[in-house]
């Protein structure tokens, strides 16, 4: 089969070396990694198979967008190791690919005696996780670092390495580079069954017909247990854990220049306040176990809980307008660690139960996956003369954007034509996104590529104009749904 993006019609004929099921941040990272490798002197052919109309359209689009140091992971777990490694890998890759990252640092704030007493153990745990920069600070220093905190903070723990990153650009960069390396990205393609003929090939039965693969990597996130069962396993169950988040107006950003984390305690996991890479401030998440794996609705109870928490944590924040609210589903399982299992005989690898740390660990997981596949017989090496990583359009607030760049506008007036006023997205950026190797399927996809319409007016001024620009390029989403 050949590479490229396919959203409708029959699947390409032929057999791919590896089918990666799930186009979230982990699947995209695995596809990118494997597409850059060769086996017996021949480049691996890779298909990234995603049920939704876009990559990064599930759990990967709705998380807290933190690049974790892994200071609070459970020492000795695979998660701890891969988060630490992924932090380095993704931090470096982000610079090369232009994925916006801000090294804001974090501060855990203790509000009770119990939480204060827990700080030394957390600092020790960080060291066990290989992170040595944490420091316990007193209440004065806490208020010095984050003056807008509400009254009652007793002390804190600094985590200078915690950072914020754009989760949307990360997934898109991986998928775009996978494409550049020759992979196929099969969207609107839901795996519904698996046929094993006992030979070397697996047939994935999808809504768009069969796809033959020599190896299968399951990175299906919320569906990873279901796909695992298709391969005959009963190893883990994903319980979607809904996290609701409130995003406050950009005017709030000076209130929160670093991530404010809760101290895990007997009161349960608290909520965090974080600056976002787009210049807003986020409050959340809630944590609620659900049955419905597609229920990303927000709730009255969730909002009330967050408002209540927010008023105590940072009263000034709640005086600002809410620009967005959303809910993400974390792929929690009954196990305390990632569910990574290799089935050599079946030529099958599952990367399941990847919780909210998956954004950080994605590249390390991909590296780990390549290693595991080699153990099972798919020995690969990195190809020579790979294309350069893509240079992704910057949608981070801390870096120059086209509307600010005189030289860009001089070369192309479209970069000086602001279409989405609140987010200052130009006609040039929207045009570029629509013409990119992995174009958006809908307005949400365009939003994740450009920030168009994600601002405070939510389309009051620009909604019609942005919609008009999107309309001439309808993919075959409707007919294939």
């Amino acid at each position, binding site marked *: 089969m050949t590479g490229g993006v396919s959203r409708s019609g029959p699947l390409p004929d032929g057999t791919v070396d590896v089918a990666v099921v799930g186009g979230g941040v982990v699947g995209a990272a695995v596809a990118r990694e494997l597409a850059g490798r060769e086996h017996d002197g021949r480049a691996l052919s890779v298909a990234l198979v995603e049920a939704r109309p876009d990559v990064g359209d599930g759990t990967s689009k709705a998380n807290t967008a933190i690049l974790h140091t892994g200071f609070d992971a459970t020492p000795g777990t695979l998660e701890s190791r891969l988060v630490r490694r992924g932090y380095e890998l993704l931090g470096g890759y982000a610079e090369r690919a232009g994925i916006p990252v801000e090294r804001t640092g974090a501060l855990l704030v203790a509000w009770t005696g119990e939480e204060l007493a827990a700080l030394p153990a957390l600092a020790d745990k960080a060291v066990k996780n290989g992170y040595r920069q944490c420091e316990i600070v007193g209440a004065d220093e806490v208020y010095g670092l984050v003056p807008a905190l509400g009254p009652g903070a007793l002390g804190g723990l600094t985590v200078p390495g915690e950072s914020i990153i754009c989760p949307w650009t990360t997934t898109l960069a991986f998928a775009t580079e996978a494409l550049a390396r020759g992979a196929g990205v099969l969207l609107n393609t839901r795996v519904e069954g698996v046929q094993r003929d006992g030979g070397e090939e697996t047939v994935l039965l999808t809504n768009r017909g069969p796809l033959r693969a020599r190896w299968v990597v399951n990175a299906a996130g919320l569906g990873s247990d279901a796909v695992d069962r298709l391969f005959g396993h009963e190893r883990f169950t994903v319980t979607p854990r809904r996290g609701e988040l409130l995003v406050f107006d950009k005017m709030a950003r000076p209130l929160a220049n670093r991530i404010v984390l809760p101290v895990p305690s007997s009161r349960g996991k608290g909520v965090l306040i974080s600056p976002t890479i787009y210049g807003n401030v986020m409050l959340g998440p809630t944590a609620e176990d659900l049955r419905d794996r597609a229920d990303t*609705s927000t709730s009255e109870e969730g*909002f009330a809980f967050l408002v209540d928490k927010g008023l105590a944590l940072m009263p000034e924040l709640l005086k600002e307008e809410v620009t967005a609210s959303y809910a993400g589903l974390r792929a929690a399982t009954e196990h305390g660690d990632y569910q990574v299992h290799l089935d050599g005989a079946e030529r099958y690898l599952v990367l399941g139960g990847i919780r909210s740390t998956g954004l950080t660990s994605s590249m390390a997981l991909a590296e780990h996956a390549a290693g595991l596949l080699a153990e099972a017989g798919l020995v690969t090496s990195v190809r020579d003369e790979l294309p350069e990583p893509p240079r992704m359009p910057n949608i981070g607030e801390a870096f120059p954007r086209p509307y600010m760049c005189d030289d860009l506008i*001089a070369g192309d007036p479209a970069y000086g034509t602001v279409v989405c006023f609140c987010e200052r997205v130009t006609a040039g950026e929207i045009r570029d996104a629509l013409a990119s190797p992995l174009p958006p399927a809908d*307005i949400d996809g365009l939003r994740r590529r450009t920030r168009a319409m994600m601002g405070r*007016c*939510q389309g009051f*001024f620009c909604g019609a104009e942005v*919609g008009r620009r999107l309309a001439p390029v309808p993919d075959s989403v409707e007919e294939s749904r």
Partner: protein
Amino acid sequence: MNLTTDVAVVGGGPSGLTAAAGLAAAGLRVLVLDREREAGGIPRHSDHTGYGLRDLRTVMTGPAYARLLANRALEAGALVRTSAMVTGWAGEHALDVTTPEGRLRVDARAVVLATGARERPRTARMVPGDRPAGVLTTGQLQNVVHLHHGKVGTRAVIVGAELVSWSAALTLRTAGCRTVLMTSEHDRAESYAAFSVPGRAVLRVPVATATRVVRINGRDTVESVEIEDLRTGERRTVPCDTVVFTGGWIPDHELARAAGLAMDPGSRSPVVDNALATSRPGVFAVGNLVHPVDTADVAALDGRHVVRHVLAYLGGTPTGAEAIPLRAGAPFRWVSPGLVRPGAGAPPRRRILLWPDEHRAVARVMVTQDGREIARRTLPWPVSPGRVFRVPSSLLSGADPHGGPITVSLA
């Protein structure tokens, strides 16, 4: 590129264009910066009549009114730059601007902010539920239908029953979409009786009062909304494919806040005095940025009002006496202007504007200062939430120019 001008006007809606026309006619170099492709502001996509009554003594449609005001500014000699987005301040009276021709730095001697207001979208109102397509504001709806001739659904629920809500209902009808319900959290519909009676008759829109929308259902497209009767707590589901959030105004105040101007917590507008001067000398604010929102003609008359004061500032006239804070008492959320400066003359149209949160059939206005009642008058128009309540500024004439804050409330 650097540009210099006497006055930079940010926003080319009714108030900004009217200010620009007046300032240019007085011989000043005036530059209007508007981020839209065409000047005119909100009336451009408000395709019904009723515009121009107070400022032009005639009525016309929104688009005709927008064109007329833009032409008047041009004829008076103002420069109007469209697709020109002001992105920040480069100095006390200097602005950074992005245009298709490049970045501009505009150095002015005075700045008039006329950035208007927008409706709070669903997110700012924190209505939970699914997040399907088909949820919009009146502004987006009218943009889609009147400027872009796009389509909407077939069954709409309108949240709010203000003047703008009926405007949304008219637009929906034009687009072939039936309004199956209009909801208001107030005990009675807020809009003018004159509009809602024919509105109900012609548009046959049922209005659910004391009702709030508590949830939106539908994964990809809207399937229904859940509404709650605030009196009984009873909830029911209303099938629809479109939800329009109307009213709930918030000024486009980001540039004002970026300048660090004193802000009014009630309206979230920059605080102005009777001369429409903000807390930064030489920066003025007009229109619905300072009273979110009154009608377009009232906004335009702010633009006319500010001309004399900008001229006085540029001529070096001192601003005069210390200003007295004006405060909104119950049941009002805000009052505009927020400062009364003795010696600066009357406010625009000799009116104090207030935003009520409750309905009152009889308006017994009371003005107090330092615990002393300085005026009381029953006004012959009702107090209705969702629209500005106007009080003659003559009620302030008994205030002590050296006294403390003045409060306007209802007895």
